[in-house]
């Protein structure tokens, strides 16, 4: 474990050196993701000019969920962005051989290929929006609540990673799984708004099958007092553990079935 932390530090510091050479690119990416989320908030703001509440949720409650949603997403984006490449080209180009030849965990090796500072855009928006919304809602931050908050965000990030990993693994058989990854990832949009606006079918899908609801709506609504601690904390953490276990087992199975593209 110590070895891995040290190694990852080395990878990141290499990457940061590279990043400093192209500061312009960093700002482009940062503002790109920041703007994407900012327009989502502008939309909510404009809509709430016309209605007092949405299905019984006030503007700041919705804003809190929306901001919260960015945090697990941003953390996952920061660390595991290279999983997208796994789905897109690692298998196609025969690059996966390299990961099997080195004396470190292949998944760790794959993930450490990229540290994605674009994600700071999402994290910045998420932090600012959740703070503003929390202040307006009068959510009191005790020490215990801060710990719960951090655990929920980490668990949410793990769920994101698990979903990405599971669908990227399909690339071992279908070579390019990017389209299906993209399709599944789009479903995370559903979790940014209260579950109650969707049909029962959609609610079922995003809670049970592709559990994005646990990355935003369910944990966030604990803080606004609309979900019990048991469901928010217990549910989110167990979904994180179960989904990552399934994804990782599937990944190991995929590695076993991997046939190199080489000669």
């Amino acid at each position, binding site marked *: 474990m110590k070895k891995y932390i040290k190694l990852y530090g080395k990878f990141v510091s290499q990457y940061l050196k590279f990043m400093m050479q*192209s500061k*312009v*690119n960093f700002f*482009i*990416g940062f*503002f*790109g*993701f920041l*703007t*994407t989320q900012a*327009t989502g908030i*502008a*939309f909510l703001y*404009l*809509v709430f*000019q*016309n*209605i*007092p*509440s*949405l*299905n019984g949720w006030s503007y700041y409650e919705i804003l809190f969920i929306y901001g919260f949603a960015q945090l697990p997403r941003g953390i996952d984006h920061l660390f595991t962005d290279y999983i997208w490449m796994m789905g897109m080209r690692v298998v196609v180009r025969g690059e996966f051989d390299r990961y099997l030849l080195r004396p470190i965990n292949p998944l760790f090796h794959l993930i450490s290929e990229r540290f994605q500072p*674009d994600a700071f855009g999402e994290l910045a928006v998420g932090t600012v929006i959740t703070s503003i919304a929390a202040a307006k809602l009068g959510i009191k931050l005790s020490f215990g609540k801060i710990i719960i908050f951090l655990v929920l965000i980490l668990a949410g990030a793990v769920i994101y990673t698990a979903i990405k990993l599971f669908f990227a693994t399909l690339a071992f058989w279908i070579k*390019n799984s*990017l*389209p*299906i990854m*993209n*399709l599944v*990832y*789009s*479903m995370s*949009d*559903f979790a940014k*708004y209260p579950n109650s*606006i*969707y*049909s029962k079918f*959609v609610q079922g899908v995003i809670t049970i099958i592709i559990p994005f609801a646990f990355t935003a709506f369910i944990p966030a609504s604990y803080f606004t007092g609309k979900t019990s601690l048991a469901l928010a904390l217990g549910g989110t953490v167990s979904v994180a553990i179960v989904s990552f276990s399934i994804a990782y087992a599937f990944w190991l199975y995929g590695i076993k079935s991997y046939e190199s593209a080489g000669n």
Partner: protein
Amino acid sequence: MEVSKRKLRVYIPFAKSEIQRALAYRLSFFAFILGDILQVSVAFYLWNAIFNSSSGTIINGFTKTQMLTYVVISFITVMSIGGGTEWIIGGEVQSGEIAINLIRPINYQIRLLFQALGSLFWQTIAISLPLWFMQTFVFYFTVGQPLPSLANIGLYLISLVMSFLIWFLFNFCFGLMAFYVTYMWGLNMLKETLVRFLSGAIIPLMFFPIWLQKFISFFPFGSINYTPVMLYLGKFKGNDALKALGVQLLWVVLLFVLSNILWKKATKRLTIMGG
């Protein structure tokens, strides 16, 4: 006339190859579209909830049915006018292929236009038309929305052609940034997001505060999406409709001129770099 016809015929294979490419990768193509449709369905549920939470039945002049129609037609418009020209330019600048394309005896801009026409044709048939039929008939039978009048459809189609040209020229100008910037992926995302929002693809421009509406009327954004959709819904009447179409035409001309100026500048720079 005969000569220019023959000249244009040279470019038809570029349009065809674009369609063939989409057909060759149709599974991934439809998976991507389905992802987009999921995002539209989020908007659908959201607007539904918004109207249910509102005290009145009309918000900013839109009934619920009109708003849901707006969401669908807006998506259809985005799909039809496509895009991707900026990716082609960006890719060719990065790989250096652009140099070869410059010495070929064809006009680079017209070639890209034909490629865009190819995807316009294909995306309209594969996505827009089926979705339009679905929306029109489902709404007709469930909530009794009347079928759109022929006049509105006609205005929409005229406006759509200009949207297509504006969007193409806009992306052409934007794609030339690849001569100066290396991180086109990030820059493109920034552009897509801003245009989506400011062109009314997420929320009708009528919802914006007046100062913002005035400000963005100096840019071509509204002409890309808002204008055709509002014409389809019959929200622009008489002189307003003509004025909106006139503004679109103006943007086609302005962007055409701008694209040629920028193109000359960018290619001059390329020569210097090539040494």
